[in-house]
């Protein structure tokens, strides 16, 4: 299944190839203070492939907090956060925000709350390596405009 998504103004877009065809798409409403305030609902498939296109990277902010392991790609024009990436051991991992999907049947998305409060940094990175999308390509669209 090919899922496409974007921020509201279209500066950040992505395509997520979900294989095999999903019975449902798990979506995690993280309860940490940042995700709660941002309304972020994240999904990932370790066997998926994510292509992130930033048409104008100059107006993409990358907010990080806490351990600063995760980079929240926020469009500085419309304020939407379509993806989060993390560089772990030199490899890029990512999750995508289901709120930014385009044309995906909502019934396919199964939302659940998660609480990783108290998890060590080491355990968190190991979990991300295990569960996040590991095939991530980040495309700078500066020269395509």
């Amino acid at each position: 299944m090919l899922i496409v998504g974007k921020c509201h103004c279209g500066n950040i877009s992505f395509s997520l190839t979900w294989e095999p065809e999903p019975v449902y798409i798990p979506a995690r409403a993280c309860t940490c203070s940042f995700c709660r305030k941002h309304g972020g609902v994240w999904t990932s498939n370790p066997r998926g492939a994510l292509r992130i296109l930033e048409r104008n990277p100059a107006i993409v902010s990358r907010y990080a907090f806490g351990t600063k392991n995760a980079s929240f790609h926020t469009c500085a024009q419309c304020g939407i956060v379509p993806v989060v990436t993390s560089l772990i051991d030199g490899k890029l991992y990512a999750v995508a925000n289901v709120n930014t999907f385009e044309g995906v049947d909502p019934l396919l998305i199964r939302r659940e709350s998660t609480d990783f409060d108290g998890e060590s940094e080491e355990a968190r990175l190991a979990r991300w390596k295990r569960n996040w999308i590991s095939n991530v390509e980040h495309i700078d669209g500066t020269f395509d405009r």
Partner: protein
Amino acid sequence: MGCRCFCTCGSRGRQIVAETLRIRGETAGSEGPMSSDKVASVGTASVATCHCGTVRIHVRQLPRTLTRCNCSICRRYGATWAYYKPSSVKIDAPRGALSKYSWNRRVRDYHRCARCGCVTHYTYRGKQRNSTLGVNAANFEPSALAGARIRHLDGAASWKFLD
């Protein structure tokens, strides 16, 4: 130059809200589409704060009714709106701390913290500017919203509540 948003921080920079807060206790009026919202009195001001703490929105009364909307912008922001009269809300933000976004007919401005990106509120533009101010209730402490009813607005299509 004053703040570009529809807030009261103006050219004075960060307000000392404790000193200047003049809250009249109004709730959403009859002008806006969300006039049925009711609020619960809590006696003291409550604050909705962005993640980095730069922007603080003070309201006198916590909302009892919240709205989630499925339109293209609200679903992406993941926002949960609480509606107020602009005069009953104080926005405490240093000059330049807020970014805003509007599109198409530019009916509303959506304001967010320029640093952490948290969407804090929206305001109407033009003639409607005094009608309703939407505060993103996701920035309140969750415990402050216990028991609040969440309604679902079909902003993507019919512009009617689904429940």
